[in-house]
């Protein structure tokens, strides 16, 4: 047997061992009910949206080539930023409210500075390096941003020096989404290889891998406490994974759900898991949904 085959065999044996060990831990089952589906209106396309940490301002990106920042409470537009490209797939607000980031089909993450003296918004930095479109990013702070891309990697880039650590590799499919853990420098990513991975930013490595989904994972979100996270997938299920148990806790699915799940978000206590194209505010008061019908709706 060649060395390659021997190694393969060794890997298989380890996997079987792990599977048995996990089974031994899986002696309990949870059961939960599906809460009501929130109906959505439909018209033109919003591709992405994100709340600011003040739970009032939110940014939306639409296929009309604009980023709009809304004061969701008064429904006034605070900024309207025309983009170079019509193909925006995701947008993000820095926790400080000072920066916005968005991507285009050019695989570059452009950040916009919002608090310039002059009052107009312009591009402050550009982060290149990915060789596939950017599916998601989140600001760690005003100087660092974590990105995920269709080139199957994630990366952590520093804005002001436009440099980056070596990328986080490991996924074998487009990485569609990521979520930062509350209070720590960890994040999880979900990809088209149907797996989710937990990454350690300071150490630059993958700590754990979670499988179970049958198809692309489109959305991922940490539980309010950083021990668990939920994923939404093309297989029309959501799953809850726990870091300490190192496996899937349960699957949420329903015969009446006939669509793929694109985004998930927890309510403040973690009691409710909302799915769709949406985001829950930091203070947990409302959820905003954005849709291909060009409308953003705020629900509570």
């Amino acid at each position, binding site marked *: 047997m060649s060395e390659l085959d021997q190694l393969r065999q060794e890997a298989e044996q380890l996997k079987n061992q792990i599977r048995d060990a996990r089974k031994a831990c899986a002696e309990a089952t949870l059961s939960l009910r599906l809460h009501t589906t929130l109906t959505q209106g439909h018209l033109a396309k919003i591709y992405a949206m994100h709340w600011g940490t003040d739970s009032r301002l939110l940014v939306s990106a639409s296929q009309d080539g604009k980023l709009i920042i809304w004061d969701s409470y008064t429904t006034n537009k605070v900024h309207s930023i025309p983009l170079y490209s019509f193909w925006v797939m995701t947008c993000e607000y820095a926790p400080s409210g000072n920066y916005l980031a968005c991507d285009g089909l050019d695989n570059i993450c452009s950040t916009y500075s919002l608090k310039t003296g002059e009052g107009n918004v312009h591009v402050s930095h550009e982060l290149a390096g990915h060789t596939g479109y950017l599916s998601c990013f989140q600001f760690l702070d005003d100087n660092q941003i974590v990105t995920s891309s269709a080139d199957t990697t994630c990366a952590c880039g520093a804005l*002001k020096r436009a440099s980056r650590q070596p990328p986080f590799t490991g996924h074998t499919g487009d990485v569609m989404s990521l979520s930062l853990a509350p209070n720590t420098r960890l994040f999880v990513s979900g990809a088209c290889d149907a797996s989710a991975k937990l990454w350690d930013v*300071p150490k630059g490595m993958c700590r754990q891998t979670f499988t179970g989904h049958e*198809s692309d994972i489109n959305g991922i979100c940490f539980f309010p406490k950083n021990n668990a996270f939920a994923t939404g997938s093309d297989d029309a299920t959501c799953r809850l994974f726990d870091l300490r148990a190192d496996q899937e806790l349960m699957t949420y699915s329903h015969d009446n759900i006939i669509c793929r799940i694109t985004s998930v978000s927890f309510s403040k206590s973690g009691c409710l898991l909302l799915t769709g194209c949406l985001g829950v505010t930091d203070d947990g008061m409302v959820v905003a949904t954005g849709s291909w019908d060009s409308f953003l709706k705020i629900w509570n």
Partner: protein
Amino acid sequence: AGSGDVRTPLIPALRRQRQIEDIITKMQDDKTGGVPIRTVKSFLSKIPSVVTGTDVVQWLMKNLSIEDPVEAIHLGSLIAAQGYIFPISDHVLTMKDDGTFYRFQAPYFWPSNCWEPENTDYAIYLCKRTMQNKARLELADYEAENLARLQRAFARKWEFIFMQAEAQVKIDRKKDKTERKILDSQERAFWDVHRPVPGCVNTTEMDIRKCRRLKNPQKVKKSVYGVTEESQSQSPVHIPSQPIRKTTKDDIRKQITFLNAQIDRHCLKMSKVAESLIAYTEQYVEYDPFITPAEPSNPWISDDITLWDIEMSKEPSQQRVKRWGFSFDEILKDQVGRDQFLRFLESEFSSENLRFWLAVQDLKKQPLQDVANRVEEIWQEFLAPGAPSAINLDSHSYEITSQNVKDGGRYTFEDAQEHIYKLMKSDSYARFLRSSAYQDLLLAKKKGKSLAGKRLTGLMQSS
């Protein structure tokens, strides 16, 4: 997922379509309690083979155990938007819970047949509609515009299209009158899905992010009207996903290291983990505005922003203070909580721990060019021999940190920070919770509530 084997991508759209088709088939099965399909007498003629919106909604609620009619209507609309059932008098595909008439789509036109009709087909369709002198086949405004546009685009082969349209009209004429009514409406519904009314979502459009992956290599281009023509343009070539690299020995070695780490990892039982998550949600449920109404009121509902004013003020509410006691992280997260804790530590002359922790948090957010300086400052302030705010580290931790400082990066003090965090948590934090400072705050609002109330009403009266 296997290691390095080629996974045939599941086609979620197909799975979804099969689900809908199951529902639709059951709905039409009158032997097992399907929806009543009738011919309705109208003014001068009969309307064949229809069902009402209400009947559909009722059926969905009964057979899919849906309690809320709104959810059933939503599901019905989704099924309609995909083109499996359609309103006979409207191009817009939604479901209404009333006497509106709907018809089921013919399996020939089902989306699962992988239709991607070309514009030539659409042109033939619109063209033949203009050839038939029937009020019900008159073109809508947007259809007339589409036809005009297609005539310009296909100017050179319009004669061919015209001939195909005539041929279709001939075929149609041979059919029975009632059958034609039904087929015409089904054909129109098919085009409503693939060439929707402006303003409607095109449900056949794929998420652009998934487009580039080879979805269905078996898909064969076919024409709705059986038109075969050499000059018909080929469909754009699908760019296959990134070619799979052959796994090397190195890849597998890495995998083995990873798997070994996984086995060695101590993992908790699911029951314990589930208990802990449930305990968390139970504790925080009162802080979740989706479940427990916010006090005094949720500004989004009542339009009264008192709640936000209270949160911005320096005086924390009792609920907020209570939360600081849930975990050490809670008090560290809250600005007001941190201030209170800092004040308490100052009274005990041990504030250097918290100040160190905060300085290290801040360091991690600094731009790269400032990092080296900050590292030096923190070292001098808290750790260097003779430091003004010396913190207490064990010798091992001190060793590691002094080594790290030489390279001065964002995570230089990670080890030290963790040590100090644990120290504060087990020692100072526990004492803080027992302290009169904290206890007073916890109870303070009970005393001060009436005062605050009076103050507010005072304000309102004077304005």
